[in-house]
């Protein structure tokens, strides 16, 4: 299994280096910066709307090392949210009117306090949970085999990555053997009712392109996925989210190493869609890192771009002050505004 950029001491494990690349080169004289692009449609500075989703990254540890991972997650990442920080998140959740708690990682289920956190959040009235599961974690160890029942008990909305309905494309991006385990995990989720009509148990899949190209039409991809997974494996799911790979972290490393960086950035800029800017996820989401710091989105978190505000930590959370901020942008933001747009909920335009 590959190691994370951090474990390999890769140059790009340094977020300043990533930002230096994104801020220079073709963006010095060939392509417009994201700030200048959104200025033309009077959308600069980008400002938050009503906060609806609190997305909490409970740790960067993962049982997989996916080639495109923007988190640079993997088994060698030890950053894990403590119970104390979770308590601080719960205190905030008690008092704010967010409608969704979105748990991500790494593999969020690998945080030893994951189940406790979900149960405590349930007790204080959170009803709309999303867990971004990589699927294979369910089979990784006996202690995870009952996750489908746990998800069902708390009516958790499961959002799972599956880059393709064929073994080759999936394993190339996510590692050898991942496809077969993912299929097995999806069947386990189906067996308890997930993705089945009228069960009320939502199972959505996330499609990320397995290379230096943008996702195609979300609805067409969903149709292809549904047909293939049903025919080949008798698997049902609700919705497919097509998410664009953002040029940061491991995907940026891949783009540069494969000499695709400039063409990919051109493709993102050419596909810029001003109407997607209106609904990008940073406008209604706040991202919390494993150590409690606040970010406009999970991507800014991975670039270590904390919110542009006097409040920077969940311990000092103040919605009124936080909402009065400019969202931090850079060229990676083109990834969320290309074509039909891209967010953790798929297309936005």
């Amino acid at each position, binding site marked *: 299994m590959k190691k994370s950029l951090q474990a390999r001491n890769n140059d790009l494990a340094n977020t300043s280096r990533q930002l230096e690349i994104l801020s220079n080169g073709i963006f010095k004289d060939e392509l417009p910066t994201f700030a200048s692009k959104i200025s033309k449609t009077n959308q600069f500075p980008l400002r938050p709307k009503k906060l609806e989703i609190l997305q909490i990254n409970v740790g960067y540890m993962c049982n997989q090392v996916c080639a495109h991972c923007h988190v640079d997650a993997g088994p060698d990442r030890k950053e894990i949210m403590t119970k104390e920080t979770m308590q601080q998140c719960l205190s905030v959740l008690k008092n704010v009117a967010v409608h969704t708690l979105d748990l991500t990682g790494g593999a969020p289920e690998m945080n030893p306090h994951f189940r406790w956190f979900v149960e405590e959040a349930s007790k204080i009235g959170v009803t709309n949970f999303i867990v971004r599961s990589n699927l294979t974690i369910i089979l990784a160890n006996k202690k995870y085999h009952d996750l489908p029942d746990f998800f069902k008990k708390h009516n958790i909305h499961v959002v799972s990555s599956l880059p393709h309905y*064929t073994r080759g494309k999936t394993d190339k991006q996510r590692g050898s053997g991942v496809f077969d385990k993912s299929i097995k995990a999806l069947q386990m989720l189906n067996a308890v009712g997930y993705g089945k009509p009228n069960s009320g148990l939502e199972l959505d899949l996330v499609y990320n*392109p397995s290379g230096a190209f943008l996702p195609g039409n979300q609805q067409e991809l969903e149709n292809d996925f549904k047909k293939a997974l049903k025919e080949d494996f008798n698997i049902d799911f609700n919705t497919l989210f097509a998410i664009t790979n953002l040029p940061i972290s491991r995907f940026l490393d891949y783009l540069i190493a494969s000499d695709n960086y400039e063409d990919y950035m051109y493709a993102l800029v050419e596909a810029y869609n001003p109407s997607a800017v209106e609904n990008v996820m940073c406008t209604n989401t706040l991202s919390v890192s494993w150590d409690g710091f606040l970010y406009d989105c999970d991507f800014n978190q991975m670039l270590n771009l904390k919110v542009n505000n006097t409040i920077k930590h969940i311990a000092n959370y103040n919605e009124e002050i936080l909402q009065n901020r400019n969202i931090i942008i850079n060229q990676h933001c083109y990834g969320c505004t290309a074509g039909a747009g891209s967010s953790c909920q798929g297309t936005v335009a």
Partner: protein
Amino acid sequence: MSKTYYDPADLRKFGNITDWNEELGDKFFEYYNSVFKEGALSGREKALIALAVAHTIQCPYCIDAYTGDSLKRGITKQEMMEALHVAGAIRGGASLVHGVQMMNKVNKLEM
């Protein structure tokens, strides 16, 4: 001036052909975009046809464009290669079917 006839970066400038004749350029792109809309054939089927034709006419720009388009649509390598073999078979067949003409001529000329 470029030292090669084809520069991959020129594909991005395809739209510039309207600069020297806006009316015809616009008409072409309007037609082009209409052709690739979902119709009786799906976008996926049209992408595979375009990919096969691109190889038949050996257009490097079209090959780049429709390889990328096929990937975006989730089309697999196996499907793409099969489409190319269809193009290859038709192209090869087009040569070989003329063998009948050759045979007819030989049969006519030989005693």
